[in-house]
């Protein structure tokens, strides 16, 4: 997963005191943003990814008791989930390898 990066360009709904030059400002007629997008679209992946991360890793109903321990910090949740899931895969994989070795003897 790409690490979260601070958005390098942010649009405000009004011109900032120090206007930033952006690719969008050079277009004669920029298209209107889709209804679900930000008021003025920044580099969309950053804004959308931030919403996705916030919504799914930091919000929502918690069903598993397993993930409750990892709620102290979003980064920690990410690491813990990743480590937990990755470890589960590796355990399953190494268990399968051990069984195959035993079967050959």
């Amino acid at each position: 997963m790409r690490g979260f990066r601070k958005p390098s360009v942010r649009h405000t709904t009004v011109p900032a005191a120090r206007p930033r030059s952006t690719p969008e400002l050079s277009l004669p007629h920029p298209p209107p943003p889709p209804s679900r997008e930000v008021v003025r679209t920044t580099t969309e992946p950053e804004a959308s990814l931030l919403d996705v991360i916030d919504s799914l890793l930091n919000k929502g109903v918690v069903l598993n008791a397993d993930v409750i321990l990892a709620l102290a910090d979003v980064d920690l949740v990410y690491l813990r989930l990743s480590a937990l899931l990755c470890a589960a895969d590796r355990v399953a994989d190494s268990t399968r390898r051990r069984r195959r070795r035993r079967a050959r003897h």
Partner: protein
Amino acid sequence: MVLPRRLRATIDVMPVAGLFAAVERVAEPTPLSEDALRRQHDIVVSLHEATDAILPVRFGALLDIDELAEVVRLRRPVLTQALERVRGHEQMTIRIFGQRAGGKRPAAASSGKDYLRQRATSARPVLSEPGKRLVRAVSSLAAAESIDTGRGGVQVTIHHLIRRGDGDRYRRLVMARATTQKPAPDHVVTGPWPPFAFAPDIWSSDSERPARGRR
């Protein structure tokens, strides 16, 4: 609820303890990745469009059907109340960028309890004056509000629960208020989204949690 066609191959909507759960049956945990997060986000957004009340579940939830039924059975009053709260509503989000607004640096803690109290206070989200004005601008539309301390350049994140269809009006109100402020707060408005930030903490009471079962 009529599932969107593209979800019918992977998502089941099943009755669970008097409510309905949209589930995806998987053989093993889904590894965390940007693609996996985006996929789940898209699914929840599609389900939100297909029904008038939905409570998204946090990423990574993997349970047996029996475990799910037990959780829903135990926490049904909380879930039912939360569903009624979000029925016919959607979420808008304002992120205000910049340094965290706050008070002076606290004095050195005299005790462990004091230290923890200071940490708890410093973790609370603090709205700057421009942020407060933006929030007041949309207060007539907000059925509920949730404010989080931001991170990574985000000063604070504000979620509002609004009636479905009010998203454009919400944006116009924010924009109108922002234009009157000098300097204008650096912010971005996104949405509408399913009500992620208004899903309840179902474990906050003293009710017994179900025993963790084997998958």
